[in-house]
């Protein structure tokens, strides 16, 4: 529950309503989210929760947002200006607008946005918004991912702001045209309708709120709440010493050549203000490794929220942050560049650049960056449904996070864009959905980046595909030492991840990322995932934690000795004296 404590008293503001109205808006955003999670036809919403729901007011100020897919922190308001530019006042009760155009406030094509204007006495009051990742969006790749694609035209169907419902009536002709472009049209039809349902739920609840309090009271309390959020955000920013901080992070390569693609950020911290300037980032990738302006801003905002432990995703918080992000950089691609990897590899890279910039300023607050994602997607003919399906396997996305002062990383605390809000699929649901058999999903020995606070353990995931692929693609980064997340203040980097295919004859082929590949029935995809990076000198790690990691089977006695300077006997008992001697001598020699 939000407790609002720093509001200036005013006659018009009822202190209890000031808690109730914002909490009610949060609760409405959450109810909308339940529709997406509970009624989706794809594991993307239902299991992994790759969506967000929220409420903006008539001017497009963000008021509330559900907590799923934090990468979309404060991403929703960027959708409103293009819609207002197109429709002006030509909107009415019962209209529903859909849009996925990355150049009109979106992130990448697979994220389909459904927005419903909420009217009260014929006046626009709110927008109920659902934004979520579709199982497919057409195009030549798999589910919209095409490493060979060079422009947004290659990725799939582009929908500018368009009315899917006009005054409550669905536009079947339009919907048919859209769905005809999409390979998994049954699933996508269900999931767009499920976003419409979420927006309807939001609209009903917002109308009930307006019926109870009236638009004027709602408005005055929302204003007071946004002001309070702004003050809280500025207070938090004041805990960062003012100054200019630089950070940069590169990914494996720009896909077309071996050139590492680098995001550079200059963070200028003033008195309760932050400016994030991405001007020095590399020019945009000729392929899909690019972000949009809206999404780059959203990721930088999210990263600041994480460092400042500020969780109020609304317009008030946003007032304290400004951006410089010129067009033509990988952080703000020029039309018609492709931006499919915005929400994944680019997100991770933007976050790490901001974290590395601020690490020297706030070492006690910062976490070692999150791990990088490698993600295969396999299109195949479903043996029972007798139609094309795509296995979007979120077990590949159960990434560990990095250590931070006081705390180890979480085994599934990453990736960056999810901040531990994504959800690992259930193995039974996964096998019931796709013709695969999960052979192993376990944390791997010695995979965590060492540190006083270690990173989370990486997983070893082995999954056997029982039918051949029609088309398969793998995207991501983190297979090279320069692209792994950096350990901080003496903490170790993890080893890079490795993806391989084990053929039915036992041959093992390492698979390069950002390529197409083929699977035969019985082939096994095997991921040796990187662990999270460590924080602080491993020789300062609490000995008890080391002994426990050895007992639990996550750390070998050899690594305990080599990296942590901890000696155990054959039964796993600590040799205290020898350990103390070894650690002291190493610390003094280092």
């Amino acid at each position, binding site marked *: *529950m939000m407790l609002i404590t720093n509001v200036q008293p005013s006659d018009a503001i009822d202190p*209890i309503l000031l*808690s*109730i109205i914002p*909490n*009610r808006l*949060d*609760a409405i955003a959450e109810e909308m989210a*339940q*529709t997406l999670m*509970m*009624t*989706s*036809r*794809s*594991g993307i919403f*239902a299991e992994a929760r790759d969506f967000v729901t929220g409420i903006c007011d008539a001017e497009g100020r963000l008021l509330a947002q559900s*907590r799923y897919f*934090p990468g979309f922190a404060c991403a929703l308001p960027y959708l409103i200006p293009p819609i207002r530019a197109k429709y002006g006042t030509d909107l009415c009760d019962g209209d529903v607008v859909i849009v996925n155009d990355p150049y009109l406030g979106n992130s990448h094509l697979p994220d389909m946005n459904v927005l419903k204007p909420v009217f009260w006495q014929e006046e626009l009051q709110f927008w109920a918004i659902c934004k979520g990742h579709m199982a497919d969006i057409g195009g030549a790749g798999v589910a919209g991912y095409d490493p060979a694609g060079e422009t947004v035209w290659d990725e799939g169907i582009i929908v500018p702001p368009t009315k899917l419902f006009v005054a409550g009536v669905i536009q079947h002709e339009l919907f048919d045209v859209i769905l005809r472009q999409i390979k998994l049209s049954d699933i996508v039809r*269900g999931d767009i*309708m*499920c976003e*419409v*349902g*979420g927006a*309807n*739920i939001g609209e009903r609840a917002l109308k009930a709120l307006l019926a109870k309090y009236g638009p004027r009271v709602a408005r005055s309390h929302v204003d007071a709440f946004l002001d309070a959020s702004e003050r809280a955000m500025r207070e938090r920013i004041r805990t960062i010493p003012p100054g200019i901080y630089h950070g940069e992070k590169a990914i494996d390569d720009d896909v077309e050549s071996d050139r590492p693609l680098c995001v550079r950020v200059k963070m200028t911290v003033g008195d309760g203000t932050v400016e994030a300037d991405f001007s020095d980032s590399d020019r945009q990738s000729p392929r899909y490794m690019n972000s949009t302006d809206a999404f780059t801003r959203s990721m930088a905002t999210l990263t600041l929220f*994480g460092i400042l*432990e*500020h*969780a109020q995703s609304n317009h008030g918080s946003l007032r304290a942050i400004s951006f410089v992000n010129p067009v033509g950089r990988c952080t703000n691609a020029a039309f018609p560049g492709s931006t499919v990897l915005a929400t994944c590899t680019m997100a991770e890279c933007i976050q790490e650049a901001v974290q590395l910039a601020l690490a020297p300023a706030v070492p006690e607050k910062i*976490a070692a960056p999150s791990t990088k994602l490698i993600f295969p997607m396999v299109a195949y003919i479903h043996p029972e449904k007798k139609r094309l399906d795509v296995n979007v396997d979120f077990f590949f996305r159960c990434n560990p*996070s990095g250590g*931070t002062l*006081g*705390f180890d990383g979480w*085994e*599934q*605390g990453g990736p960056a864009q*999810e*901040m*531990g*809000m994504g959800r*690992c699929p*259930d*193995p*039974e*649901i996964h096998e*019931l*959905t796709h013709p695969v*058999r*999960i*052979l192993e*999903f*376990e*944390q791997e020995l010695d995979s965590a980046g060492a540190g006083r606070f270690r990173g989370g353990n990486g*997983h070893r995931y082995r999954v056997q595909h029982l039918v051949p692929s029609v088309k398969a693609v793998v995207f991501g980064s983190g297979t090279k030492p320069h692209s792994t997340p950096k350990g901080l203040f003496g903490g170790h980097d993890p080893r890079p991840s490795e993806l391989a295919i084990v053929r039915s004859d036992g041959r093992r082929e390492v698979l390069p990322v950002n390529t197409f590949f083929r699977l035969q029935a019985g082939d096994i995809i095997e991921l040796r995932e990187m662990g999270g990076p460590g924080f602080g000198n491993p020789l300062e790690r609490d000995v008890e934690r080391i002994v426990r990691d050895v007992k*639990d*089977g*996550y750390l070998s006695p050899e690594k305990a000795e080599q990296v942590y300077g901890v000696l155990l006997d054959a039964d796993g008992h600590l040799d205290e004296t020898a350990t103390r001697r070894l650690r002291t001598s190493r610390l003094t020699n280092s």
Partner: protein
Amino acid sequence: MGTLLGIDVGGTFTDFIEIDSDGDVTVLKVPSTPERPADGVLAGIRKLADRRRSPDDYLRSADLIVHGTTITTNAVLTRRYAKTGYLTTKGFRDLLNSRRGIKRNAFTAKEAPPDPIVPQYLVRTVEERIGRNGEVLQPVNDADVQAAAERFRAEGVEAVAVCFMFSFLNPAHEERAGEILQRILPDSYVSLSSHILPQVRMYERGSTTVFNACVGPLLRRYIIDLQRQLEDSGFRGRLLTMQSNGGVMSPEVVKEFGANTLLSGPASGPIAGEFFARPHGLRDLITIDMGGTSLDACLVRDGRASITSRSEVAEYALAVPSLEINAIGAGGGSIASVTDAGMLKVGPESAGAVPGPAAYGQGGQMPTVTDANLVLGYLNPDYFLGGEKGLDPELAAASVKREIAEPLGIGTVEAALGIVHLVDAQMANAVRAVSVARGFDPREACLVAAGGAGPLHACGIADELEMDLVLVPTSSSVLCAAGMLTTPLRQDLVRYASIRLDDPSRAAERLDELCTALTRRGSQLLAEQRVPKDKRRLEFSCDMQFEGQFNVLETRVPFLDRGRVTVKDVAAVRRLFEQHHDRIYGYVLEDATVEIQSVRLTAIGLTEAPPFKPIPTGGSDPAGARKGNRRVWFSAQPSDTALFEGGRLQAGNEITGPAIIEHPTTTAKVAPGWRARVDEIGNLLVWRERANLDAILKRLQPTGALAMGSG
């Protein structure tokens, strides 16, 4: 009908309510005996018996004992679980430990996952595999199970949870592992996931099974002890236990399904609150039950406390249905202290029953909320627990002075007022968490205040939340115990169905098969628990989805209890699902096939409503119950405050605050600015004096509700 007993075994007190064959109600509180909780129960029963002419026959005349226990709750709060091992399919060792990757808060890295109930070195895997159609892909490797069992034995494991892939489709492998475990570890408590929760989703099923196992041994010991002691004392009636879902179950079920008892005590509070508020036409309530150690708050909307199947216990997934109750560490025994930073703090530490508040004179040095209430004159030192427990006001005052007033440089009365205000504010926050945080305005509900300490703090909490109406139930101090006597027997059953409605005749046939089997099993369970035929209710629901959806929506299908499912019924099932889906999720997929994943049956054995006898009716003047005056501090200045004997009040009496109403087991405070009226069975309605009670009731009643007996 013979005597009925409701017993609520709490952390500090064990509460009793007895309704005899004449409808006379007796209420009693005795200290709990946490080391061996059954002893406290028997001690209370002996006390009740001693009031009878032939005490030795007392239990022989008792028909029914319904009891709630905090054994499970306390095990969770104190993390005192049985040492538990977890046996799972090879390749899935870290599934529970990984917690599906969910963090509580996205926007902080400064957080550790909760310690697992099963430490990682006690998670062992077994080579075995069932496939998605229930087929055996790989037989159980007995040697793996044996090796795990040996390891568990070496580590001193008391309980083992077993959860294999797809065991809900084919339990054979789990059962085989269970046999081997039981052979090698004959004294251990073994829970199989296919038995505890036969439904899809390995993480939730495994987590629930672990929870069931780790509380199982303690609970089983307790129930066996209680059964034996009751039988030795001549009890031949039915013993039932409250479960988290708001129903009751038999001892045999409790021993196996410990996970269902997490809210065994508190679950009956909202049910009792609803029972007492119903005659006043009040349907939206917030019930609070403040005892010695904790406060439970629950929102009741339209007469129903909300139930969830997706709850978490101390951050562990628990997929059994339970009421949504918020518990915080604030009670009469909560300790007040001054922090290093010079701030007054109350709770969550509690002085419990031993040493108890400073005023008990049992060696407690730290002042508690009870001590503050005594210093302020709210409590009668000679009439706590009906005079059985003498309170020493001087010890209380000395403790408040030494520990709070002097460090803060204020007077003793000021310090005591501070303690009371602070605990009221904390309790108001607990109420906000179940109302405001869900967007529900507490000003639109009636506060039902119960527990030994609740009625003293009700006006304070209501003030914080601007609520206009408080209901203090008769026998308020034992609300949960009373609730147990108003609770039906309830057993939830589920069968995996996988029925597509696009083939109506096949669907009707399959549905009929399942409903027949469930009806047979449900009726059998009710018969075993001795529910007569005319008291049995079977409530069917189906977990349904539009084809391709990942989750299901449970929809009530009332007509399935009729038997003989027809093709026409199948169309009706679809209609019910579509309406429900639109109401909850805002849309319908008109041309998609609907599938029934599971059929659920809630088998209910109705119990008779406890026959509370009306109290004598009188006029508005409460003079007959007046028993003098006392100096009471509602502010820094004392006021000469009227005292009333609760037991002598008559229906229709009205009392203007400030006033104190004393019952043997509880004390109610009518604060200045509040007014109280006594209803037909002795409940108090307390409202803001400046408003009119009928107007408040009218505002809080749902439109169209019939107001009855409001004074």
